[in-house]
């Protein structure tokens, strides 16, 4: 349950932080989140999951815009990969950034 709450905390932090400061918020907040996480929250799982969830929520908000479908197609042709892969790459970037930061954060806090 604590891990679940921590996922929600991190999702909120990642969402608002990214809105305020851009992508750099994801690893910074993940580092802080892993450092501060309750021991029972399994931060190596909950911090990356929360970050991905936060970015996923922002993506879901983007998806409500009328031009999202067209945008997805354009990005798919630009890169060029299948449109879902672009969305996957976005969440993958959040995962890599937050996982790396969480690994560091949890390693440091055991002291």
């Amino acid at each position: 349950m604590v891990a679940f709450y921590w996922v929600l905390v991190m999702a909120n932090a990642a969402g608002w932080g990214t809105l305020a400061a851009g992508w750099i918020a994801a690893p910074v907040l993940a580092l802080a989140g892993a450092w501060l996480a309750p021991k029972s929250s399994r931060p190596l799982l909950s911090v990356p999951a929360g970050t991905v969830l936060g970015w996923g929520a922002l993506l879901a908000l983007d998806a409500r815009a009328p031009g999202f479908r067209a945008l997805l197609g354009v990005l798919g042709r630009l890169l060029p990969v299948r449109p879902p892969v672009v969305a996957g790459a976005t969440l993958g970037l959040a995962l890599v950034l937050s996982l790396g930061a969480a690994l560091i954060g949890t390693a440091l806090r055991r002291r």
Partner: protein
Amino acid sequence: MSRFLQAAAGVLVLAAGVAVAVRPVGSLPPLGALLEPAGGVWALGRAGSLGGDRTVTSPAFAGEVKVVVDDRGVPHIYAANELDAYRALGFAVARDRLFQLEAQTRAAAGTLTELVGPRALTSDRDARRLGFARLVERTMRDADTTSPAVQSVKAYAEGVNAWIDHMRPADLPIEYRLLGRQPARWVPANSYLLLARMALTLAYNDASLVKAKAASRVGWPAAEALFPVNAPIQEPIQPNLVDSTRFGFVPIPPPGAPDTSVTTAIGALNGAHRTLGSFLRWTGDEALGSNNWAVAPARSASRHALLAGDPHLELTLPSIWYQAHLVVGDRLDVAGVTLPGAPWVVIGFNRHIAWSMTNTGSDVNDFYRETVDDSLHPARYQVDGTWKPLELRVEAYRAPSGLILAVDTLRFNHRGPLWKVDSTWMSMAWTLYQGSSNGAEFVAIDRAASVGEFLESSATYAVPAQNMIVADRQGTIAIRSTGRYPVRPGPGRGDLIQDGSSSANDWTGALPVEFYPFSLNPTRGFLSSANQQPVDPAVNARFMGANWYSPWRAMRINTLLRADSQVTVDAMRRFQTDPGSARADMFVPTLLRVGADSLRIATSPRAKEAIRLLAAWNRQYDVQNTGPVLFEAVMTELSRRVWDELAPPPGPPGSDEAVTPRPAEAILLGLMADSANAWWDDRRTPLAERRDDILIASLAAGLDSTVARHGPAGSERWRWGNAYHANIRHLLRLPALSALDLPVQSGPSTLSPSSGAGTSGASWRMVVELGPQVSAWATYPGGQSGNPASTHYRDFLPAWLAGRLDSLIVPRTAESFPAGRIEGRTTFRTGR
């Protein structure tokens, strides 16, 4: 896992993530800023929306301005004063086309490298050698800053910058994201750079160089006949007394001995092509042209004057045009298209008049061989035995980082820029260099209340010369080929390279407006233009240019208008995409006649089959038709065989020497009547061919190449819509943002012309009825927004492809706007 190992693993994973977030990956920009879901590229889906009511407070505005965006994405601007209207227009254009604004003006200024890096260095060098930045510096220096035109340009700039200040990170156009750049602030001079760029597209003419190149291969007498001053088919803009096409073919002298004295000219042409690069207007692609026509009330079904216009330019996404409607009390109420980057409606209508333009294509630039003091690094040039200093400009090309990529020293004399061609220095005089317009004519045209006021307002217009057609609610129609035409010494011809060491060869002035080609309310009841020679030389032989477009489109327009004494708005619309071809009407009967007359046809079953197929063709270029594919292949083969003497000596593909001067097809049509002319001989064969031999060979080869490319005769791939496509490319040539392989009802020399790569064509189509209330219908290939995620990125395209026009709404007030057609409303207020 030990803490150390875990931390090390974390560092590695994080470093990998940060690396792709901050460093370009292949051709992709850093993925962090690109993909993050708050302000990254995903936000463009939201930026594409124009819906809802908003208020913008900006110190740029003097008072309140209401902007209603209609369901086509077109802003209708209601302001209390003109400058606020231009500010709001600048704001709206920047919101929709910010990257286009910057890219276009940087291309003209030669500073694209600062946006896209070294890949644009060649293009920038081309632009700077033309001296546009120098020209605009002078324009701004000499400008009367209190004039309405300069004030409008400044207000527009304030509007553009107000958007840049107002925009959120989410609004950053996708192109900037892909390039990893931020938009530069807009300066008023940019509007004039844009006009200079348009002048190059429409008013550059290298007829003299092309003719000299032909002379170097077949001698001057043949070159003069192949690239004549006067078109052999006359369907002039200024109507003749006898309202019909006049054919004035003259015998073509046989190919003569190459004239070796014009090697400088060959080099000059090559040099010009190198220097102007992709900017060159003349590519032989007649899809770069335009149509316009007007019908007097006596010939219209509604008894109101009608006007149609469709300028043909390079097709791009976003479009070269931006549609807008500006209202300022009872002083200004104009709608139509603006050039993104300039604040005036260039083609459109107001409550009293409608107007459109086609390019005149007159010869307004001449080349001079210069005598200089040093062949490598000249500082002076000689005129009448006196040495005069050259103006030297040191131009640095910078990368986005500010790093200097290259430095050039450019030279100018009193005529224009100097280019070194082999060992010779050439200069180019151009009417553009004598001072470009500051936009005053457009400011006045937008307010004109009658044909008379329009003609008066446009009288001082200079570059590029345009066939301006206008109609008003009183039923008056008029056309005038308006622009600055140089007056040359001696015979007055501009299609020959001049000696620059004598001032006697300099232009002596400009043609007065009363001598411009002109017609007002002709008895035939209609006027038209399609880039043909404006005046029949039998009426007035004054030199205005050379190597004119063949008048196929003009012939077709006039055929349609002569045949219809009850013209309707819908007929005007249909004419704009009419699939008929005067060119096919002229050539096909000759090809068929040869087939019927010649005994030799029996020896060529393939030619016989080609003739059978062409005979069954109705000479229309609709998408289902299978005839145009074969006809175009036969014409290609025919041209190649007839003009083989003009072909360059073997050289590396793509080299400058590979450029073949190609006479207009009207010349080829004239040659058809001279069956024994030496030009019919194919020099690559030992036989002495005559016309019928070449026609039969071309028919057979045309069929062969069509079958090889499109399959057996009559197969699905022969359909014009499958074989030929329009291609509307994005400004950065990104296929993902382009609209490619579009089937179109258009072909070479049809009224909706399209040829070659299909990248040029009708860039705006408009029909206006000047009744008690002015009504207008229009579309263009693209959409109002430059954001590919917007529904308005290419929403006009289906109508454009189908030849439909949208009914334009132009409410007089924001309050009277029909609610069902409102997409969004923005109110601008002054303040911080």
